[in-house]
Each structure stands twice: as structure tokens, then as C-alpha cells.
């Protein structure tokens, strides 16, 4: 609660024209927003551009933030998510998104993702720790549909609770849980498929 009060104070000062307060807000949230953008967009360059866009939009619309309507973090995450969806529509990334039930094709057999996993003899737990495995998970995450991807990012990477995620995505909590479930399961299938190929 104390943190929320500090943030609300910063927002009030910022709306009143205090540049120091604005810098404090940027310092507090830039890393979190960058991470959401990076995990959703897939590349650091896109994530950087999107993070800047989020802050530009935030700077312009900060006066519209209503403390009574929800936490500042939820407001910021909603704004980030909306920009990510816009970006996704613009770049038409859904063309390369895999279907959950799609059978592995010949193209998938030759996926470079599997080539990067070099430590074939090591158990999965050990592989997870490696950088290559993290890259594989990151790439597999990009193959999820945007609805499932945003749900698992907010839950498993940003540790948001189901109620907050429901508020950000503007869907019922049950839908959020269903999407998280499906997202996790699909990711596991994608990665298992990759590991089966290399083992």
C-alpha cells in the first residue's frame, strides 16, 4: 500500500509538471515494461521502440489516470498490452504463429531452434539453466498465439494475479485461467517436440 501511495504521489507531481517525478516514474517502470515488450515482440530492438512508445503515450495521458479505478501498475500494463496488440496487428506476426494441434511439418523438422540445443545428453532440468535453452523457450514463446502469449507472460513472467490480468486483458478470470493453461501446455508441447528431435 505504501508503494501505491508513493506512486500516486509521483503521478500527482508529474501531472503538476514536476520533471523529476516523471524521471522517477520512468526509472521505476522502464525495466518491467521493456521485459513485457521483449517477451511479446521477440527482439530487443522492437522492445526498445515499443517501450518508448508506451512512455510517450503515458506522458501524454498521465492526467487521465484515475487512482480510484485501479492500480497504476495495472493501468501501465493495460497501456503496454494495447500497444503490443496494435504492433502485432501492424506486423502481421500471426502468419508465423503455430497452431496448437498442428502436426510437425518438414519445415519444423529443420528448425534451427533444435540445432542450438547442444547438450543433448544432459537432463531437461540442467538444460533449462543453459542460455541456449532459455533462447529456445523464448523462441517457442513467440510461436504461441498472441492471446495465449500475453496471458502466460503476465502470469509466469510478471507474476500478476488472475484478477489483475483479467483487468488488463478485459476478459473474465475464467478465460484468463483457461488461456494460461493452454499457453503453458502448448509451450511444453513445442519444446518437447524440439527436444525429441535432438535426442
Amino acid at each position: 500500500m505504501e508503494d501505491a501511495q508513493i506512486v500516486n504521489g509521483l503521478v500527482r507531481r508529474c501531472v503538476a509538471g514536476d520533471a523529476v517525478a516523471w524521471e522517477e516514474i520512468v526509472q521505476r517502470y522502464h525495466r518491467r515494461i521493456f521485459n513485457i515488450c521483449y517477451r511479446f515482440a521477440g527482439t530487443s530492438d522492437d522492445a526498445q521502440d515499443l517501450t518508448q512508445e508506451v512512455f510517450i503515450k503515458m506522458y501524454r495521458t498521465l492526467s487521465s489516470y484515475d487512482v480510484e479505478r485501479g492500480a497504476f501498475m495495472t493501468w501501465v500494463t493495460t497501456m503496454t498490452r494495447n500497444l503490443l496488440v496494435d504492433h502485432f496487428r501492424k506486423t502481421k506476426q500471426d502468419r508465423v504463429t503455430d497452431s496448437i494441434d498442428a502436426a510437425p511439418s518438414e519445415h519444423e523438422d529443420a528448425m534451427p531452434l533444435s540445432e542450438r540445443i547442444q547438450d543433448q545428453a544432459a537432463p531437461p532440468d540442467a538444460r533449462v539453466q543453459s542460455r541456449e535453452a532459455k533462447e529456445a523457450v523464448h523462441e517457442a514463446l513467440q510461436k504461441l498465439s498472441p492471446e495465449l502469449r500475453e496471458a502466460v507472460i503476465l502470469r509466469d513472467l510478471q507474476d500478476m494475479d488472475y484478477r489483475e490480468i483479467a483487468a488488463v486483458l478485459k476478459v473474465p478470470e475464467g478465460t484468463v485461467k483457461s488461456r494460461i493453461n493452454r499457453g503453458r501446455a502448448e509451450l511444453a508441447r513445442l519444446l518437447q517436440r524440439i527436444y525429441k528431435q535432438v535426442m
Partner: protein
Amino acid sequence: MPGETNNGMQCNEFEALLFDALDGLLSGAKQGRFRAHARVCAKCGPMFAEVEAGQHWLKSLTEVEAPANLVHNILAATSGIESYRLQEAATATHKPSLGERIREWADSLLTPVWSTVRQPRFAMSFGMAFFSLSVALSVAGVKPSDLKQADFSRNGLRRTYYTTTARVVKYYENIRLVYEIESRVQEFKKATTPAEPGPAKERDKNRKNNSSGQPEPRQERNYSREENQPVLASNPEDPPAVSVTTIRRFA
């Protein structure tokens, strides 16, 4: 299958408890029943394994570091101010003196000029100009040591002006004297040399000395003459006295 009972737990109950189990909120007997159902149910067991594995993979992803210039870029794109923290820290620790401020001002003026001058085309032009100036000064007899010793006070400048004027006048007078002596010597030579080289000889000499590049008058006539024009015998080297005599005879 939904509604099927395994170890005292139905599949729909298992699904309801799935998130609590994954979030580590189940405990005691409830967790035991949940695990037992996952072991025996052909539908719920694999589903739970997949979801748990997916969660495990996702949790393995650590937070990435944002680029170092991101905050700077955001502040530049929004408030247009680089960083108040850095600015305040800089002003608190060090206040620039008047000399430093003048130097900063001069730097802000000179830096763009200097960056332009450093371009190869300008550098070559300035190099050539400097070379030409130094050659001109050395030819004129100006030495850098003289410039060093120059007095820029009012009296010094006046003295320098008069000295320079005197030097120029003296130089002019010397030149005039030399020319006068030279012309006198030539006159004396003319007076003492025996006279009258022949007119033909003199003309030959003139022709040989013709360095103007203009063609001879005779050649001009030949090149401009048309084919049907009668060729008249002429000897331009003869004196005109002959024609005068002829006219007199017919008259």
C-alpha cells in the same frame, strides 16, 4: 473422462484445483488426492504434466536487462530533459567559473566551425592558402620574428607606419636611380656606336626579331588570294620610288 471418479476425486474437481496446485496453494490431504488423481486419470494426468512443464519452462526465463540508453531515450522523447538526477548532481558538485563559462561558450561556437574546417576539401583549401601566404611573405621579406617584436601600442604603430613608409620611399628612390643610370648608359652607348646599318638589313633583323606571333604581311596576302586573281609581279622589298617614276612618265 469428465465426471469419472479416481481416488475419490472427479475430473472437474481436479481442473478446479489445478491452478491452486500449480501455484503451490494445495496442502495436506487435498494435495494427496490431487496427485493421486493425476497419476491414475488418463486425461488429467498428461494434461497436468504438460501444464506443469510449460510453467516450469516459463519460470526458467529470467528478467532481461534493459539497454543502458533506454531511460535517456525515453526522457529525451517525452520531457525533452536528459536527466534531472545527473544535472542536479553535476551542478551540486561543481559550479563553473567565469573563465570556464567563456571557454564553454567559445567551444560551442568553435566546435561546429572546426568540424567543418576539418573536412578534407576545406583542409586542402586552407593548406594551399597558408602555403601561398607564407611564400608571398617570404618573397616580400617579412619574417615571423619581426612580427613577434612588433609593438602594437599607438606610438609603436605610428613608428612602424613611418618606418615602413620611409623604407618604401627609399626602395622606390633606389629603383629610380638604377633606371636612370641604366637609361644614361644606353644613351651613351647609342652615342658612341657607329651608325646606319642598311634598311634591308634592318628589316631582316626586324623580321628575325618578330616575336609577336603575327604572320608576315606577304603571307597574309598569299593565303587570302583567290585562284582566278591575276598574280602581279611585285617586290615588296623594293622601294616605292619605281612606281612614282612610272606615273611621271605617263603623265
